[in-house]
């Protein structure tokens, strides 16, 4: 039991803070902090700055750009990045396909894909979910049939986040339709989005944004050497990937950033002769959220050390569950602080409404996804009940 950061970790924290606040351009960070639809250019630029400094993929194997950081350092890195409003490395690259290729891909695939993946020269998207295979991923139907040295892919993926910017997609496809269990017979395939037969259709969300898509495959021909690892082992790789996805799954740094913003918004919103921060119910709600977010951060720090590579501690379900709740609570608070100003989503040129207030409701609505995507909160509760408490449910 030690309260303080070691001198080494404190220095690391300073180093990260300085890097993020001085090496990533302020205007880029301000755009990111403002929220709204993310700019692909800003994300590329940020990731390349990070990658150049060796900070884009610190959890990868060292030979491919990784650092051998402690879990605490990893937390500090994420926390400082989020606090400085630096766009994080694209999760599909850094946390999903990269680690899978590094762990299961051939040397050839590694050399071909890992460097551009780390540098966001390839923008990846994820082809897992299908219209009838969401939480129940094993029911997927997209098929790949081997013809000569090419896979011919047919089917449809959905909820493909930022697919409109993607160069490549990593997809789960059914290669063995007759496998005895539906989890078997699935393979992990890398597909160039420019291949003939690939169509992307945007899905419009309730906040007006276009961040997810449907991806259609019609007789798309994929070179056989773009199958990662072993044929039929895609389910194993997907579980590995989803395990990685949960690392750093509670965006504590950005929740804290938003909560600090909320406090400043309340202080800046005039109410009679004072401000909204003088309203006891507003202040108490902020104090309560600060306490709850601190408890979450402390839990992240406490259990981070428990995670085993590739096999996440089920305790990470706490972080996903609670993280999404608090993220949503903070955004709800911001919308309430905006109050009447939240009714205007798009400001005119000479509007006097603050940008944050106009974005408050679409952002609040957008993040209702946080408790649905990446394993819904119901799924997280089931994981806790069964894997931790031993309740079948």
């Amino acid at each position, binding site marked *: 039991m030690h309260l303080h950061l070691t001198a080494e970790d404190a220095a690391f924290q300073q180093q990260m803070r300085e890097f993020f606040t001085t090496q990533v351009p302020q205007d880029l960070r301000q755009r990111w902090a403002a929220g709204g639809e993310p700019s692909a250019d800003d994300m590329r630029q940020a990731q390349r700055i990070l990658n150049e400094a060796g900070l884009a993929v610190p959890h990868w194997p060292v030979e491919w750009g990784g650092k051998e950081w402690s879990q605490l350092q990893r937390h500090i890195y994420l926390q400082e990045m989020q606090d400085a409003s630096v766009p994080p490395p694209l999760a599909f690259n850094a946390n999903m396909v990269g680690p899978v290729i590094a762990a299961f891909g051939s040397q050839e695939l590694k050399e071909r894909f890992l460097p551009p993946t780390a540098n966001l020269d390839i923008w990846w998207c994820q082809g897992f979910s299908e219209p009838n295979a969401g939480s129940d991923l094993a029911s997927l139907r997209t098929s790949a049939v081997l013809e000569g040295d090419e896979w011919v892919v047919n089917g449809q993926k959905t909820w493909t986040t930022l697919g409109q910017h993607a160069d490549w997609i990593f997809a789960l496809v059914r290669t063995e339709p007759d496998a005895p269990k539906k989890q078997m017979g699935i393979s992990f395939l890398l597909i160039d989005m420019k291949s003939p037969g690939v169509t992307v259709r945007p899905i*419009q969300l309730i906040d007006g944004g276009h961040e997810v898509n449907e991806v259609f495959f019609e007789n798309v021909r994929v070179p056989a050497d773009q199958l990662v690892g072993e044929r039929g082992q895609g389910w194993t790789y997907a579980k590995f990937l989803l395990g990685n996805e949960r690392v750093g799954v509670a965006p504590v740094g950005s929740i804290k950033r938003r909560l600090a913003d909320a406090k400043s918004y309340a202080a800046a919103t005039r109410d009679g002769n004072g401000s909204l921060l003088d309203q006891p119910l507003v202040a108490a709600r902020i104090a309560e959220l600060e306490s709850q977010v601190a408890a979450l951060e402390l839990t992240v720090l406490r259990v981070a050390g428990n995670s085993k590579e590739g096999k996440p501690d089920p305790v990470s379900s706490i972080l996903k569950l609670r993280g999404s709740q608090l993220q949503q609570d903070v955004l*709800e608070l911001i919308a309430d602080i*905006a*109050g*009447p100003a*939240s*009714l205007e989503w*798009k400001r005119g040129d000479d*509007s006097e409404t603050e940008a944050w207030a106009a974005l408050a409701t679409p952002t609040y*609505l957008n993040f209702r996804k946080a408790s649905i995507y990446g394993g819904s909160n119901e799924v997280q509760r089931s994981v806790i009940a069964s894997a931790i408490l031993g309740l079948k449910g």
Partner: protein
Amino acid sequence: MDFTFDDEQKALRDAVRDLAGRHTPASSGGDVPVGPGKHDAAAWSAIADMGLLGLAFGEDVGGAGASAVELSLAATELGRGRLVTAYADAMVAAELINRAGTAEQKAAFLPDLLDGSSLIVPALAEPGRAWSLAAYDVTAEGEGDSVVLTGTKEPVPYADVATHLVVTARAGDRTGVYLVADPQVSGARVHFDATPAIQLGSLDDAPAAIEAAVNLGILAVVSEALGAMDAALPMTVEYLKTRKQFGVPLAAFQTLTQRAADMYVSLELARSTVLFTAMALADDPLDSAAASRAKVQVGQSGRHIGQEAIQLHGGIGMTAEYAVGHYTARLTAIEHTFGDTRWHLARLSASLRDYEQVEVLRPA
């Protein structure tokens, strides 16, 4: 105390439901509008033609001589149909004129408003300020016919299509009510720069007029919210029955059906509250405690039902192709209209010592 609709009220409800059904915005196929929409002029004409604007106003000022109950009933159906119009706003403006205005001013503006010839909306919010019944930053100078207003109101929903605005403004240390024709509008922002305005009635009458008008606006939006919730729950239930996961309908998952049951409880509590509030405001337009309690109950029910409707739908509920998200967006906007739950709790807190219990059974 009786919560049942009479035949006339049922006929009105059915007629408005038909009207609203005909004008319900599409939510599937390509880009559908999301967020605060443009005023639907066609729907507005239909609303005006059916006489829905005049429901709560006397025949002497061009109204239908019905009551706040009928207004609530109509607004519920407009909410169910997801119509995007200035209905609640126009009701606030009308009540402001009705309560603050002189006989001449009422005669000059109300009949046109109530038959749809003019579209008058209130300009209450000031940028950078929390919700308040008082005005601070828009100021009025002069009196009677030579008043000028200075300052900014924003956002003013439907300002872009309004023919006139009813504006609250600071006059010395008080708040008055003013009418402005052909306002200088940019989006939802209205700027006044020594803009000529007509003062409606006296400063003495303004606070009560504002309170009554906002109460009527609250009734309109909580009724609209009731319609939205009353539509969102069956959609969610239907989805649970039909959508399969892991080979079984979602309705097989008890954790989801128990939560749907809780949504039903929230809905029915809101329904009772809205119906009562309509009756209470028909009886006493200044029953602000009833209006605040309605805003609190509907605020809590609306947030609960809106959030759970999306969560129980899963990813699909996040898309603009499913109406459930539109309902949730609208419920969220309603929470932030005319004071949020917190504001109303604070208002109610101030008068807790004035009574022992909330009495809902009232002798005539």
